């Protein structure tokens, strides 16, 4: 298990398996897991190629070192699993791609920042360079399987371990249902018409009714199920962490399309245009709302207004 640009949530998520975790641990040998065991990079480097059965990697690729480690683990492992939304799609840290690397460094460390070693340290003690943009794991190495989620829900973690310790699915498999979250959500759906768009903190949601019907932007229609609708059940709209259903394509654009279809401000027609726009204006951060987890995987952020760019093509 390795973490790249990660919040640590994915590393902790295994605990949610409860007692079943003991069963898993009795069947595996942990060779490397910075959060848990004391093996170092040099120990991994010393292993022969393919010596590790499975490497689960979580976090977004954000630094040169992240990329090196992903490549090293690819070489030493038979299977690579992208674990969690960051490794799968770029994740929430991927929203940083809305700004240029230099802008981010300047905002955090001040103008002209260069990574340098600590006083008296050798050059290799310097912090690693940031990549030009945050990337999903698949941008650097071949990924065999995906366990989606932010962090992955326990049901999907066990699904993945069952398969990894038993019969392997075809390469590329995502350990989550293909059906949309709405299908496993117990909330009642009515004829959908949105006369307002609200943010979760602005309303006390009705406990039974579909959150989208109540004006919250719930990505349930375009997101894979597999979490047992944990967020909608708790009154929070789905933000899409399990990634798009195979049918949805670009998850955020599919949701944008669905949402725009549902918005009404009285009778449709020219007279309603201005008030419809006002309803839509309530979406304060469209990209952060529709592409919360998948920006690096679906969009090469173009920079026609900023010049330069990442060298990976400026187009969306």
């Amino acid at each position, binding site marked *: 298990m390795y973490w790249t640009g990660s919040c640590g949530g994915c590393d902790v998520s295994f605990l949610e398996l409860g007692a079943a975790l003991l069963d898993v641990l009795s069947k595996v040998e942990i060779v490397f897991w910075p959060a848990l065991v004391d093996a170092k990079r040099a120990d991994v480097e010393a292993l022969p190629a393919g010596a590790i059965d499975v490497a689960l990697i979580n976090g977004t690729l954000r630094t040169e070192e992240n990329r090196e480690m992903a490549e090293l683990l690819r070489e030493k492992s038979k299977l690579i699993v992208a674990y969690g939304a960051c490794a799968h799609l770029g994740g929430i840290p991927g929203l940083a791609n*809305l700004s240029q690397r230099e802008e981010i460094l300047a905002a955090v460390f001040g103008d002209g920042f260069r990574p340098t070693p600590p006083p008296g340290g050798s050059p290799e003690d310097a912090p690693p360079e940031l990549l030009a943009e945050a990337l999903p794991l698949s941008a650097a190495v071949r990924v065999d399987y995906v366990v989606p989620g932010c962090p992955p829900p326990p049901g999907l973690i066990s699904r993945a371990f069952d398969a990894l310790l038993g019969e392997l699915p075809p390469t590329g498999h995502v350990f989550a249902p293909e059906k949309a979250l709405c299908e496993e959500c117990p909330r009642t759906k009515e004829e959908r018409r949105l006369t307002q768009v609200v943010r979760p903190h602005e309303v006390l949601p009705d406990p039974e009714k579909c959150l989208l019907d109540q004006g919250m932007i719930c990505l349930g229609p375009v997101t894979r199920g597999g979490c047992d609708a944990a967020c909608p059940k708790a009154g929070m709209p789905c933000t899409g962490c399990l990634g798009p259903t195979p049918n949805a394509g670009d998850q955020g*654009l599919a949701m944008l399309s669905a949402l725009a*279809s549902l918005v009404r401000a009285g009778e449709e*027609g020219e007279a309603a245009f201005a008030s419809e726009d006002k309803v839509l204006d309530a979406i304060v951060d469209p990209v952060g709302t529709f592409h919360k987890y998948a920006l690096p995987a679906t969009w090469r952020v*173009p920079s*026609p207004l900023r010049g330069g760019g990442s060298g990976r093509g400026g*187009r*969306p």
Partner: protein
Amino acid sequence: MVAFLCRWCAGAGADLAGTSRLQYPPNAIPIRVNCSGRVEPSWVVDALRSGADGVLIGGCHPGDCHYVVGNYKARRRVYLLRKVLEELGVEPERVRLEWVSATEGARFARVMTEFVKELRRLGPLQGNGQG
């Protein structure tokens, strides 16, 4: 430039512009759709990704949609999509929705001329389809 034209109004308007031998810049790859309300935002983005510098969606005038409300749906989608594009750093003017009726060949020619002028002003969308 890619132009998604609904077959009932804007597409017919384009045909009329053609049969009336009106002059307008030949920069559009027209794609005929049944209704402007059928145009998915992801198609618009795919067009931009594939090398188009702008996308025009041509639908019926308000009240004239063959499917009654498709053009209203298209309008809301374009409104939101332009916001997304803007946040991503793409000029929202690259995506344009225009109402053109079947009898408005001249209007179609004018819309095309204006849009091409606007796109020339904006210049090529950076990245040249390498995305």
